[in-house]
């Protein structure tokens, strides 16, 4: 249990949110929340339904623009950016409700994740032969690496719509990984999975974190999983932050127990 602390000391802040306020009409989804994410850590966000967890990720990747507060990423303050620009900054994510491209194969879905790494213009693409094909092959090789890593070789050419839920989640992770992000946002990556699938997914997340040093922010309801894989945990309730620290600290915090753990478990 000293390991997470060591990790933190060595690393710098990759993301810092300061006093974020977000409301929809009269509904306050996030009130005055601040927290940071260290480079290379696995940071979990937990909290009951409607606590504002997904909204937090939407703020980080630019779908929602907070009314108040500052966002610092990679040492720079961010001023209102579009989600596609944030993708170029190195943030990738998966969704709570799977958001794959239904009409495309597994391979093509993951290839779309390479979008920010491909630069040949339209004329080269129209010609295909030469630079565009070369670029396609290089990126295809990278994607094949991800397919091997996620152990989905057999379904490479299958249209994603035909896959069972658990595999779709895995493909969505693959698409996010293909972008080689600095920071990976995962919104309930294990929801609706059986124990075996959850174990696989945990293994993938930890492997990604270990092998590529990717910083991970994940939302998860399964407390066992969170305690196992997270370095630090933020606890939200009704849009407010009620706890922040290592899993051990959070687990023993009376406010957290009352608001969340006590109620739903």
């Amino acid at each position, binding site marked *: 249990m000293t390991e997470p602390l060591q990790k933190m000391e060595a690393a710098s802040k990759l993301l810092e949110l300061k006093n974020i306020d977000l409301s929809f009409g009269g509904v306050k989804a996030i009130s005055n929340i601040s927290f940071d994410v260290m480079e290379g850590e696995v940071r979990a966000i937990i909290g009951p339904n409607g606590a504002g967890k997904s909204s937090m990720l939407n703020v980080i990747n630019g779908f929602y623009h907070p009314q108040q507060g500052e966002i610092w990423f990679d040492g720079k303050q961010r001023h209102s950016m579009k989600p596609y620009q944030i993708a170029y900054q190195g943030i990738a994510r998966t969704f709570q409700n799977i958001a794959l491209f239904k009409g495309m194969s597994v391979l093509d879905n993951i290839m779309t994740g390479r979008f920010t790494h491909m630069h040949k213009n*339209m004329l080269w693409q129209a010609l295909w032969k030469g630079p565009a094909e070369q670029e396609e092959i290089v990126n295809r090789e990278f994607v094949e690496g991800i397919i091997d890593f996620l152990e989905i070789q057999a379904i490479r050419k299958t249209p994603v719509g035909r896959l069972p839920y658990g595999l779709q989640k895995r493909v969505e992770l693959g698409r996010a990984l293909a972008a080689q992000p600095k920071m990976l946002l995962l919104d309930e990556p294990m929801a609706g999975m059986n124990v075996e699938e959850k174990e696989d997914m945990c293994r993938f997340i930890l492997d990604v974190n270990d092998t590529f040093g990717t910083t991970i922010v994940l939302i998860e309801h399964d407390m066992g999983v969170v305690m196992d894989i997270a370095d630090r945990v933020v606890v939200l309730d009704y849009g407010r932050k009620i706890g922040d620290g290592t899993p051990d600290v959070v687990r023993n915090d009376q406010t957290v127990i009352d608001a969340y753990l006590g109620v739903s478990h």
Partner: protein
Amino acid sequence: MFYRESGDFKKTYKLDSQTFPIKFDRWRYYFVMLVAFIVVPMFLTDYSANAVMIPFLVWAIAALGLNILVGYCGQLSLGTGGFMAVGAYSTYKLMTSFPGMDMISVIMLSGLVTAVVGAFFGLPSLRIKGFYLAVVTLAAQFFLVWLLNKVPWFYNYSASGQISAPQRELFGIVVTGPHATPVAAYLFCLIFAVGLAWIARNLTRGRMGRSWMAIRDMDIAAEIIGVNPLMAKLSAFAVSSFFIGVSGALLFSVYLGAAEVTEAFSINVSFAVLFMVIIGGLGSIFGSFIGAAFMVLMPVLLKNILVGGLGWPTDLAAHFELIIVGGLILVFLIVEPHGLAQMARVLKEKLRLWPFPH
């Protein structure tokens, strides 16, 4: 027996992304090219060129263009007729203003003009989707036809309001005007159809095509992987309109020879091309060709059978044709939204692994 994937494994990614991954398909492709460029011209008559082959090629190019927009990028358009008119009138203005310009450049430039116009009318697609976008493109259709009809500069102040294509040569062979032979006109269109199909194939299998399909399937997810929705949609409108503009240019200069905008490029054209795309197969290049072939051949066949064979009156046969097209659209939308191309694919899948289906 020979149509099989068994034993035909791909060793490199390059081979795997080939257009025709199975040897048999590749040979069939060479065979089709051979037939199209050499055998067909040997047997081409005035009738078969004008009733079947040339319109087939011209409409196939339009269907390819619309398929890029609707089938690949998921943006519905009813402005095809108007965009074809832009291509046709650009060609007319270029041919009459620069008599020395070669026809390949004329047609390509007309495509570019149409691409710009198309991208402009695609701008609202950033904000509006589906039905409402269809209404905007419908407005584009009526506006463009109105404009080209209203401003006499576009038809060089001709008294009839018509535009007609002067005679032009390419490598010393007459390709436009009344003295063009059917073979020359056919080959001229064929070059464009084959070239543009190749470009469509390249664009749709690469980065740009994936960005279009990503927008079509789930625009939110497309954004988080870095696709700028405006760029993706506008590029789809531009490329699609380029194809449609070329088609309009060929329809006017090579096929019709003379045109009047309210007749040749009416809303009916927009619907006809949309039907080709639906019947042939949304999101399929091959489908665009079958769709065009179907819509060109069916009236010819029906006319021969009903009027020629059974002695029906012409107008009754024409109505019957409308009923058949309408019925087929319904059937395809309900039963097989991916059209004839998908039916062919399913059949192929079955043959592909035969005799070992598992």
